[in-house]
């Protein structure tokens, strides 16, 4: 199988072609850096995305706190993760990078704050 991938690691957007079958990658062409090679290989077998969203707080003046997945989560689990994040309501002091949800949807990845509350 051949897959045309546009790298999203940086704004360059290099067009990369990956050839392989399932988890087995035969050839990667068109990348211009190490991160691009890694991205294309992942994108071929297991596409992942960083999830960024907000969680609700109890403060009317600052009703939302921005959060992110510490590492990229599997692309197909993005909507499941969103549903989990929506359940949270913050009512205590939070610093940037404090864990808001650990191991979200069994991915082994934490949702952390990107701001302070």
């Amino acid at each position: 199988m051949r897959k045309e991938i546009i790298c999203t690691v940086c704004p360059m957007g290099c067009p990369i072609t990956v050839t392989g079958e399932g988890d087995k990658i035969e050839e990667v062409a068109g990348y211009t850096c190490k991160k691009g090679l890694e991205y294309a290989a992942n994108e071929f077998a297991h596409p992942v995305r960083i999830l960024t969203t907000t969680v609700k707080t109890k403060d009317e003046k600052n009703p939302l706190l921005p959060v992110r997945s510490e590492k990229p989560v599997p692309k197909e689990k993005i909507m499941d993760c969103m549903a989990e994040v929506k359940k949270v309501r913050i009512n205590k002091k939070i610093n940037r990078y404090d864990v808001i949800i650990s191991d979200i949807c069994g991915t082994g990845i934490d949702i952390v704050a990107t701001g302070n509350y």
Partner: protein
Amino acid sequence: MLEMKCDVAIIGGGPAGLSAAVAAKKEGADKVLIIERDNALGGILQQCIHPGFGLNYFKAELTGPEYAGKFAEEAKALGVECILNAMIINMLPVEKSAICVNEEHGVVNIKAGSIVLAMGCRERTRANIVIPGTRPAGVYTAGAAQRLINRQNEMVGEKIVILGSGDIGMIMARRMTLEGAKVVAVIEIMDYLAGLTRNRVQCLDDFGIPLKLSHTITKIVGNERVIGVYVAQVDNKKQPIKETEEYIDCDTVLLSVGLLPENELTKKAGIEVNPITNGPIVNQYMQTASEAVFACGNVVHVNDLVDNVTIESMKAGKYAAQYVMKTRVEAIREVSSITGDNVRYICPQKIVITKENEKVRLYFRVLTPEFNVVITVSSNGVEIAKKKAKRVNPGEIEFIEIDTVKVQGEEVTVSVNKQGGAGLCAKK
């Protein structure tokens, strides 16, 4: 009237103002004061909760709040002071003062040694692009919707059409989809994407959101609330083709149709503004035509990466501090940077020549996309810098570095030509 004194006064506490403040402090300015109209520092980055910031500067992929947070903390640690919820209503470049209004202090006269303009930009609205139709509720600029959704917990609609394929528009397409809305289409009048390709991949393609290039909204329909829009393909003169018109059902229209540097203060103060960038004309020290006034970030020209804003703003802060401390190398003369083939604008527009050689980066945007080009800088018809690029794109700022010692004439001209083509271009 209350009076405040400082060495460097910075108007705006977004990424440009924060970076300028940090650099001014590090250069040795004693009292650095940021005046910010919002209730917190960080500017627009506070609502840009998505990742993609800092890849160049921090070598890590940060979100807007993280990027802004790091600078706000550094500024605080260095002893930068700030007034929040404060609006500058007038700036006097010769007197080096700014009049500010604030709920707590009333009208304040801020007296400074130098001033840094870091007001950023604002979005073009429906009025700027004149879309026909009724004037119902439900038409937002993408950034306004972003603030409502990401900071104020207000959802703007359920069925969305986005006009313009700028980065904010595409990022909002993803954001609204994650929050449960249906984005029906992204409409772009040009035949190419306005924003970065990576945003099309992860914001539109990931969620199956259709992108209609060479299309525009011909009419907005609805009385109290938007109920739909008419969309048509455009010809090569950007005129809608009547036969292609179709109706799309939606309750919300987001506009992502460009940004305008916010230069009311600059113009009112009589500081010269470039008609292409809509920002003040600056030299490589980010100094405007008024010597005590410096400018940086999106108020000078709209950037595509905050990392570039940071680098440019650090220069503004550094030289604004040097101006106050009188530590700058004396200028011998000043030359202009001129746009040659396929160059829309250059920043800085002026280059100061001193007795020392200086490496100056000329940042520019091209007029049309092109592959395999050679970028040249000439002065008095002599080539003084040259580099090759695989690809240039109006949506991405390019740069080329020159040595000031090589500048012979009264100007330097930047040109972008196809490799093996015209080569050194004639002066315009």
